[in-house]
């Protein structure tokens, strides 16, 4: 099969690459390792708990056997389990001192079906972070390079949010933001007045205004997004980029196909295509193209580069620098505080808002005011009321209990800190030397640990969170300052970083391999630093930007 471009992966960035390249007139093959999922045919979307064998909680005994990593994801449950990988069938290995939970969704749409939808721009505090404190290597781009691409992506996917005029969290092309609840409004005022910090509604790819021309409705406040949404109210490949790409007539989709390797021609110094195996029957196939985009997800794109080693490139494709696989990151996160606000117990809400609130970064911007760290952290969370689940933790039975659980209960405010993870050479991906998967492909091996910078940031975050909650009249009942396992933010990134210097980076400023001009990696693998914002919006903007550059280079005959 001959195409103009091959896109490996169909998730958040793969969908964007397919859309942009097909709309530019290229014939595109998109290869997805998992099964097809058709928009509007989400199997559990409309099921009530009493229609599920384990009432929505799922069969823990089964999960312990087959989903021992994925079951730790808070979006994983009986309704959504079909949107997560079976860990037993999809193993990876970790180093002796590594605790890394790799949350994965292998299906058409990838993690665009299960993502948290939080969509934030990075600022020059972020793109300039490596240069300023010396961790990692400098980004070859700054905010001005990506800003127009943020505009384009936000307008297309539909991001609701409130403009706040913050330098560290630039405003975007927002639909009207969802509303803060009564307790969040109160806390917003206190943290603004007393600390000059900004609590705002989450900027989320859940639409508050329908896009009827694209068959997408506004959010219905169900907050069951990870089951799939027939309303098309949140951005996923299925709801948004895939129909756009298909409408061009230029897209071919192959599902149930794992790419075994990207082929490289040392004579032309170009990649020529990919080889893949059908996961249903084990048959092998190949396709050729003038352009190859890797969008398999940060770790899987790195995995693919590593296993595409050849005589000409014995340590991995596009790895003349030797840094491929290094400086992987994930946001260090922890539950910084839970505080009770009983003074609001005569108020309540209606509807399941599918986003929380955030407190934007405020440390280490113009003044270096971090204690033992040089980067930022922000909080995500919000105020919520307990319901019947609270009965599980408290004494009481009988009529008194039934009566108590009949109404919403105590208000509590939850703040989870997400801290910038500095890039380190010791946090890296390699091919496992002995372990293989069921297709005989070497497993990905993860070595990862947080360091003193992240520990210091989370310690400061805990203290700050408790102080803000107390100032707002809350009663702090607990807080943590140790990061969870790597991977728990589900923001794993890096491994094929962008940079100016081909000797210390894999990709140039166009997400294009320094070594191979017709190879682009536009998912999380390209990240040179982590910032503390959720990264998917940036991946999408960089993908759209890279597609534009690639098409221009193709037309100019440069590649």
């Amino acid at each position, binding site marked *: 099969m001959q195409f103009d471009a091959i896109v490996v992966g169909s998730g958040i960035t793969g969908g964007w690459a397919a859309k942009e390249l097909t709309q530019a007139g290229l014939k595109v093959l998109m290869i997805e390792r998992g099964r097809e999922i058709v928009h*509007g*045919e989400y199997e559990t979307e*409309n099921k*009530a*708990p*009493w*229609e599920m*064998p*384990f*009432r*929505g*909680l*799922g069969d*823990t*005994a089964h999960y*312990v056997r087959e989903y021992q990593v994925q079951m730790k994801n808070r979006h994983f449950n009986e309704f959504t389990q079909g949107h997560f990988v079976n860990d037993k069938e999809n193993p990876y290995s970790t180093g002796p001192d590594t605790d890394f939970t790799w949350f994965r969704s292998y299906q058409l749409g990838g993690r665009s079906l299960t993502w948290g939808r939080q969509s934030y721009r990075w600022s020059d505090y972020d793109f300039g972070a490596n240069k300023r404190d010396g961790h990692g290597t400098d980004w070859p781009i700054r905010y001005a390079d990506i800003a127009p691409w943020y505009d384009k992506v936000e307008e297309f996917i539909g991001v609701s949010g409130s403009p706040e005029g913050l330098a560290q969290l630039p405003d975007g092309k927002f639909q009207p933001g969802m*509303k*803060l*609840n*009564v307790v969040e*409004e109160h806390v917003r005022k206190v943290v603004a007045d007393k600390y000059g910090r900004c609590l705002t509604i989450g900027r989320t790819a859940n639409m508050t205004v*329908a*896009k*009827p021309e694209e*068959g997408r*409705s506004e959010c*219905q*406040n*169900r*907050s*069951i997004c990870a089951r799939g949404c*027939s*309303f098309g109210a949140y951005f996923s490949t299925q709801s948004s980029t895939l129909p756009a790409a298909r409408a061009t007539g230029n897209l071919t989709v192959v599902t149930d196909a794992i790419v075994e390797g990207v082929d490289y021609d040392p004579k032309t110094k170009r990649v020529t295509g990919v080889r893949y195996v059908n996961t249903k029957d084990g048959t092998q196939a190949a396709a050729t193209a003038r352009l190859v985009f890797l969008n398999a997800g940060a770790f899987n794109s790195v995995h693919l580069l590593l296993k595409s080693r050849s005589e000409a490139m014995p340590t991995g494709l596009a790895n003349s620098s030797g840094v491929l696989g290094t400086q992987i990151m994930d946001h260090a996160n922890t539950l910084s505080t839970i505080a009770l606000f009983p003074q609001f*117990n005569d*108020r*309540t*809400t*209606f*509807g*399941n*808002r599918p986003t929380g609130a955030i407190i934007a970064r405020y440390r280490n911007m113009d003044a270096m005011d971090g204690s033992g760290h040089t980067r930022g952290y922000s909080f995500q969370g919000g105020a*919520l*009321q*307990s*319901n*019947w*689940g609270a*009965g*599980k933790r408290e*004494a009481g*039975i*009988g*009529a008194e209990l*039934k009566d108590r*659980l*009949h*109404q*919403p*209960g105590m208000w*509590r405010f939850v703040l989870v800190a997400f801290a910038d993870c500095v890039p380190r050479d010791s946090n890296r991906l390699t091919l496992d030397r002995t372990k293989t998967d069921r297709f005989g492909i070497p497993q990905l091996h993860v070595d990862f640990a947080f360091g003193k910078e992240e520990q210091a940031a989370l310690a400061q975050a805990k203290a700050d969170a408790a102080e803000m909650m107390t100032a707002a009249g809350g009663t702090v009942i607990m807080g943590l300052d140790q990061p969870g396992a790597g991977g728990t933010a589900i923001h794993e990134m890096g491994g094929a970083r962008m940079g100016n210097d081909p000797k210390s980076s894999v990709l140039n400023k166009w997400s294009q391999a320094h070594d191979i001009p017709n190879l682009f990696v536009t998912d999380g693998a390209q990240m040179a630093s982590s910032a503390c914002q959720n990264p998917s919006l940036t991946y999408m903007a960089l993908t759209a930007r890279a597609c534009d550059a690639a098409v221009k280079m193709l037309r100019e005959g440069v590649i």
Partner: protein
Amino acid sequence: MQQSPQRGWNRREFLSATALVALALGVPAAAVSLTSLESEDAPTDRQRFVMKDVSQLVIPRSATPGGGDVGAGDFAILALAHGLDGSRSLLKDAAAYARFARNDGSIRHVAWLEKELDTRAGGDFLKAPAGQRLAALKALDAEAFASRESESPWKAIKGLILTGYYTSEVGGSQELRYEPVPGRFDPDLPLTPDFRAISNDWTAVDFG
């Protein structure tokens, strides 16, 4: 369900379409049979009676049916056997419950509860008067929740009885409100006495 390519669903169309699909297909039978449980977890008839009675004591009948009425006991038996809510995790003080241990070291909660209640009733718990049964269970409950460190198997049993009740159709949609498509978010409402909690407030279920 096919979506019109021309425009998205609105709430009313969506609800009626969902109802039509349910009519056409019939609501799938969701129950998993207790007879599929392995022998060490297969309940005796008496254990099922105990769990039904206890469920009804935890959530009694009022204007709406109680826990025993809706089968919360049977659900809890199934859920405990399958380890929901961490109920097959190993206890720190495993020796205290050694006689109820499975081969994997986890506790057979139902067998423990049956024995514990008989002991507290000074004989056959099921034959004790209603007031005495309730008092015995209240005492057990108070002891179990007296400290955060307590490893009493009752905590998991009670928790899964509550899950069984509030995720049943009666508990979820009659005792509480089930709102599959709220369609809006109201950020600040007075909590009036007639306001029933929403059983599918997922944030509250996860974090509340």
